[in-house]
């Protein structure tokens, strides 16, 4: 745990030991995410801010605490995003949107600029897959569209757009988009950068 080693390195007197430890042990989270040690510490600060009474400042003992969806969704980074609930849900282990710190870091790592397109495509698919059946079916698309447009399109228009989307991207003709279809479509998008 980077945070843990950091705190330890600051507090423990046995300097020599820790110098050596740090040399040998690479930052675990750095190898799992796209963040530096500093950024992870900052993320932890944000995580702590969300619920100061729940989250301990000290991560030495690897405490097992999770923040509920409602708290995380209110972060300014996500607040305006129409898919905020889905984003948090698809990164949580239980699918209900409760995030531990590890998952929290993972989420921002995937959303960060450094993450490769392929990884983002995988999670984008998860986000758009509202009913978690590994396919984007018509209901999923309708929900997506309504979130995107704040339900300002008429039902006929929604119908038309969903039909067109499936028609365009569906390669195997099963009237729903599998991940292969989605990946094929999204990899050619000129501005799928996020």
């Amino acid at each position, binding site marked *: 745990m980077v945070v*843990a080693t950091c705190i330890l390195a600051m507090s423990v007197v046995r300097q020599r030991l820790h110098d050596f430890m740090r040399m*040998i042990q690479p930052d675990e989270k750095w190898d799992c995410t796209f963040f530096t040690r500093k950024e992870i510490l900052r993320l932890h600060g944000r995580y702590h801010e969300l619920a100061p009474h729940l989250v301990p400042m000290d991560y030495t003992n690897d405490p097992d605490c999770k923040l509920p969806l409602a708290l995380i969704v209110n972060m300014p980074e996500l607040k305006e995003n129409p898919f905020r609930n889905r984003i948090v849900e698809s990164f949580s282990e239980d699918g209900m949107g409760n995030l531990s710190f590890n998952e929290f870091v993972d989420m921002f790592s995937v959303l960060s600029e450094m993450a490769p397109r392929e990884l983002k495509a995988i999670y984008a698919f998860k986000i758009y897959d509202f009913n978690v059946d590994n396919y984007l079916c018509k209901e999923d698309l309708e929900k997506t569209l309504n979130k995107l447009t704040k339900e300002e399109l008429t039902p006929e228009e929604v119908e038309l757009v969903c039909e067109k989307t499936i028609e365009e991207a569906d390669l195997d003709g099963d009237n729903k988009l599998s991940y292969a279809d989605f990946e094929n479509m999204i990899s050619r998008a000129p*501005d799928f950068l996020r």
Partner: protein
Amino acid sequence: HSINVSFSTVEENEDSTFHKEHERERPRGKRRNGEREKKKRGNGRRKGASKEAGEGEEEMQVRPEKRERGKRRRAKNDQEAKGRERDEEEQTKIKSAKTTKTRKKEKSRKTEEEEGEGESEERNTKRKKKHGSAKKEEKEEDGGKRTVKEKAQDVKKKKHKKTSEESSEDNEEEDNEEKEVRPESLSPEELEKLKEAVDERKKLIQGLRGKPWPMKKKLVTLRESQEFVEKYEGALGKGKGRKLYAYKVMMTKKWMKFQRDFENFKTACIPWEMKIKEIESHFGSSVASYFIFLRWMYGINMILFGLTFGLVMVPEALMGRPYGSIPRKTVPRAEEASAMDFAVLWDWGGYAQYSVLFYGYYNSQRAIGWLKFRMPLSYFLVGVGTVAYSYMVVIRTMARNANESGVGDDNSFNFSWKMFTSWDYLIGNPETADNKFASITTSFKEAILEEQESRKDDNIHLTRFLRVLANFLVLCCLAGSGYLIYFVVRRSQKFALDGLENHTWWERNEVNMVMSLLGMFCPMLFDVISTLENYHPRVALQWQLGRIFALFLGNLYTFIIALMDEINLKREEEKIIKFNITMWEASLYNSTVSENSTAPPVTIHPADVPRGPCWETMVGQEFVRLIISDTMTTYITLLIGDFLRAVLVRFLNYCWCWDLEAGFPSYSEFDVSGNVLGLIFNQGMIWMGAFYAPCLPALNVLRLHVSMYLQCWAVMCCNVPQERVFKASGSNNFYMAMLLVILFLSTLPAIYTIVTIPPSFDCGPFSGKKRMFDVIHETLESDFPAWFSKVFSYASNPGLVLPFILLMVLAIYYLQSTSKSYKEANVELKKKLQTVK
């Protein structure tokens, strides 16, 4: 000592006799150490276990090697029994602790665990038979938590699809268990295998963050593979090489860390990144594209500034003759009284005119200072280098952008892309988010409309007709304004010949007034016309930019015409003055001769010497004034048009009859097209004038710097986001193309003046020469050996140059045709790919 070693691996002064053993034990001990630190849950059980292990190890090390294995196995069996007990304990604990999970999950998990237990026991026995190895020991030592995790993984593996990495890991581990016991007795092939396995793990660690797994799994995998790597990396080296190997590993780790830090440093070094990001999140990428363009221009101007400042201005100021030594470096007697007045200085006359800022100040002395710096040559080369560098940069950037944007230009997934990629995940502001929702809705509506129209195939003729009509109207406008400019310029030339005093104020300032009126009203007209066309705003912006650009070319044209007229006037004046000066000198000489032939020649103060008008300095001053007034108008319109309007709308709204904010005046939007064009034309002025006023790049850097901050502030504080926030095209190649055109148009007159007009006789670095580029000949003749100038003269012979040009044209043609065929091949391949899929 061995206890010491196994407990705290940190001990660095290892005894060489226990070296091998030590190396092998190290990772395990270390992990234990880390584990202990991480979870200081104070269960003595663990400590006991590790102590036991330590004792076991101690025993092992004392005994001769042969017996070691058997002993180990025994110790292990004991531990295993204990460990299993511990496992069960731990599992029950965990089960009870799982309160956060849902019931269903818990149930399924339980069953999984039970299955896993059975399985793992089975496995354990199997393995015992196979080889009583250190792996198990390790596993048990690790404690329950990990075992549970692993078991869960095993079960998963069985139940779901096997993820290839995990299964391969397991196999590898089993493969390597035997090797691990006696690494020194391995055959080279096995060593190779081991090395490969280690490399694979390393690759896994590197690619880990690109894996779409939940974090827990990532962490577990990471730890496992790290252990594996650390365990076997040591075993791979031999004797002295081992230390070197460890050192190497450490260095690579340090190097990685350095690279990370360097990456961070690099991103932190991009100037104004945060500002632009903030604007982008509020106003969308189209407004941000302007600021990115501005930043790019700033970079170019910094380089130009460095060139002129470092190679022309500073050497002249430091090593050239000081102010007041010769006539061209002195303010003339008639102007001396007012040379320090602010009005004169503001107009770049007086002391400003006779300084390094302008062409006329430079002396034609071939080499200056103790460095023997070739001033005129340097001046000429910097002038040429400025233009050459600008061409190179613009064209290179265009080529790179074209490469980037040439990837996905097909429109086959229009709706899908709109559906899945239209949300800009950077938006963090509610107002912008609302706008984005609106713009997405409108874009969907547009797309739907287009779709329906294409199905009906009815209204398309109307839009086509409207677009043709709009273009026709715009062409009429342009032609009209072009004729108006032409007419006004001709008239003003006539007035100038008559003498300006005989005419009214309007007639004198007609050209400027007409130009600014056209510049004000035509863009509005174009805007109105462009609503007819019903284009996508991005396309509409490009059309708008192109049209205003064509209009402004008239502006440029009149400016150049006026300048040329003035140059010709000055040159005629110069002829007369030159004649007068020879008369004056002759009379001076005669008077001294007639009075006293032996007396020393009369020394005349340089301020009193009559001198020519120096048209080059005049051109430079003209450009500097233009830039200054342009900058001032930009800033003032920004303050009045944006800031004052915003203030009035904001505060008068409380006591007004209608809603000012939503109604008529409202807040202003950021005018992307106007600002981009202002920037481009400003840069054109710099390129045109930089040869005659070396201070221009410096001024421009200052201007761009100020406008960066001022405009960022103005945008954030008094503009509202556009109604339709649209995504700018990824590359701003359209801006670049316009910049290239302007660069070409502005270097043409500059080069024309340099090549065809002889320099003034008494000012500037090229005075006394017939043409400015004669400085090259001079340098070739006097500074290079004779054979070089001979070679050069042969090379510049038309008989050689013409074939060379022909060759270049052929090469260009060849490259062009090959690139065309490549493109075709690309399209073919794309088609094939689509059919395959």
